[in-house]
């Protein structure tokens, strides 16, 4: 993949959120609609295209924990808020090389995490679990070794304690398990087909109705060892 090759050439150890999502999208993983902007002019164009309410985020391969650094503004509802948020994020990023992402506000109360880690013994392993802040707090997650079969993907969803989050609950639709299965299988494929991908975090994957959407993503790189 061109993006990965270039990043490695530049000596980078991670892809930006937007680059990460481009990789995901090329593996048919649904990602949030978004546009990268660098100035007030392109911002306004992007805002019109995405439509309110929307999200602005600092976007750089050098920033991995955007929330902690105050580089995410959610639920922006008009041009004034957008301009203000844009300036704050640019200021917040300081000298860091990067741009700002204008992103659709994906609505949904249920957040999942899907990830990948390359283990020296097990090889690429796919992770599934509760997302958002619960990933770290509850660690309600399960793993499967890539490549995944459909059964593995279904099993690993059933494995987490909170698996009922995928059912039709409290008036919410049941998650589209077929889509989730495809995402899990394809995340495994990214690991198998790209030696340089060391880790992937897709957190959160928000259930927008029944449909899972990758709202934030991080791909960590490592120059493959020549064996």
């Amino acid at each position: 993949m061109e993006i990965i090759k270039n990043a490695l050439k530049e000596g980078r150890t991670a892809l930006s959120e937007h680059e990460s999502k481009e990789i995901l999208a090329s593996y048919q993983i649904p990602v949030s609609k978004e546009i990268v902007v660098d100035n007030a002019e392109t911002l306004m164009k992007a805002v019109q295209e995405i439509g309110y309410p929307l999200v602005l985020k600092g976007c750089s391969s050098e920033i991995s924990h955007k929330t902690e650094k105050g580089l995410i503004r959610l639920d922006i509802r008009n041009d004034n808020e957008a301009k203000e948020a844009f300036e704050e994020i640019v200021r917040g990023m300081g000298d860091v090389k990067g741009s700002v992402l204008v992103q659709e506000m994906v609505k949904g109360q249920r957040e999942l995490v899907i990830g990948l880690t390359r283990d020296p013994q097990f090889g690429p392993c796919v992770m599934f679990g509760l997302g958002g802040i619960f990933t770290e707090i509850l660690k309600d997650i399960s793993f499967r070794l890539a490549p995944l079969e459909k059964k593995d993907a279904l099993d690993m969803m059933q494995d987490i304690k909170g698996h009922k989050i995928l059912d039709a609950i409290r008036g919410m639709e049941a998650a589209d398990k077929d889509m989730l299965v495809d995402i899990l299988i394809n995340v495994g494929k990214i690991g198998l087909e790209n030696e340089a991908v060391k880790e992937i975090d897709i957190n959160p994957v928000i259930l927008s109705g029944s449909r899972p959407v990758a709202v934030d993503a991080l791909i960590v790189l490592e120059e493959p060892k020549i064996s």
Partner: protein
Amino acid sequence: MDRLATNMPSLFSPKSVAVIGASDNMNKLGFHVMKSLTNGKFSGKIIPINPTSNKVMGINAYPSINDYNDLIDLAIVVLPAKLVPDIFQECVDKGIKGIVLITAGFREIDDPAGANLHEKTADIVNRAGIPVIGPNTFGMINLNGNLNASFTPEFSNLKKGNICLVSQSGGISHLLAFMAMELNVGFSKIIGLGNRLNVDFDRMINYLMTDPDTKVIALYIEGIDDVRKLIETARKNRGQKPIIAYKTGKGKVGNQASMSHTGSIAGRHELYRSAFNQAGILNIDSTETLLDTAKAMSLCPLPEGPAMAVLSGQAGPSMAACDLLESEGLKIDGFTRKTQEKINDLLPPLALRANPVDMGPAWYDSSAMQGIIRAVMDDENVSGILFLMMFASANVDALKGVRDILIKWAQQKPVISCILSPPGIWDEEINELEKFRAIVNYPTPERAAMAMVNLWRYKRIKETMELN
């Protein structure tokens, strides 16, 4: 099949065994190995190898294997590590089919010389296709072949059965064997893999899948070099014979320095568990549960569904069992109307007659007890029966009353029990019932319940395997 694999049957069922380092001195392991072979009533030829004695334990000894003119299938080696490469070369030249290398001092030691010796030794046998159990092991025992190739003669006291334990730890193997003697569990084989010169878990699984003596494969694992190979082997054979595994070493957590959440949460232990799951291996959390589960799997059919009947002589133990069954996903639902009507005819209204059934009031009426058991066995909504009965002076004859019906039933649906009395009172009756496979008995209601839970878990694994 590679040559090493074709030699595996001879390794476990040899016609002749040489003990290289056999001794009459009980301070040497070579003494205890000889005692294991002779006490274990090995029916083949035993050939003690000792450079200075003509006889060991009254059996003709030879200075080296070359001085013995006939064929030797298996060599048990108890010599110091530094002598092993030369001895192995002799074994190759002699055409030996398998080796048990009890000696320690290979790659497990800090000194890099150990690792070098390991490589050198492995190279000799690998080229000749000789499978080696060990180094650094107590050995192995094949109970059906009366072959105790270990330094623990007492292993021969184990009951013969159809469970094969493959263990990375000698201590755990001894622990499980001694527990098994108390719990009346039988083994086909116990294999101490030790530091795995060329026989690792994956190779053992491949062999055991074809071993007619083995029905259940129990693994104790600490850590393996080629995990993917084990997983692939188990996966390839999934659904055939149950594989259950207890893996220790939870301590190692994920890479804390990792940039992503996925990387930092992924502990080696989680990955093992997940990989086992994926390969159809049932994860187990303690030595006790490993043995309990193996026992149930070796004797019971798998429950067809999650609905359980709990029949109890007293209420308390059944509460304990029900709590565990339900928390692990099994169901204690109502019986069919037909069953319930039969039970109502047999028990007075003051008893708890719905599932779980309190059979206390029927203690003195063996035909009532039999009627209840029969009705539950025949209930199409019941997939397994938990039978719990504590001794009381007044019910000393209760077991006699249900003996025949349990024996006749012979585990058509799994019947797991916790029947307990003070030592000496019901021992013989329980033994007899277990001998006829009428019950599979455990010392506590929770352990009995957990055994049933694991039968159900494995049933689920098997089902999803078949779907794929």
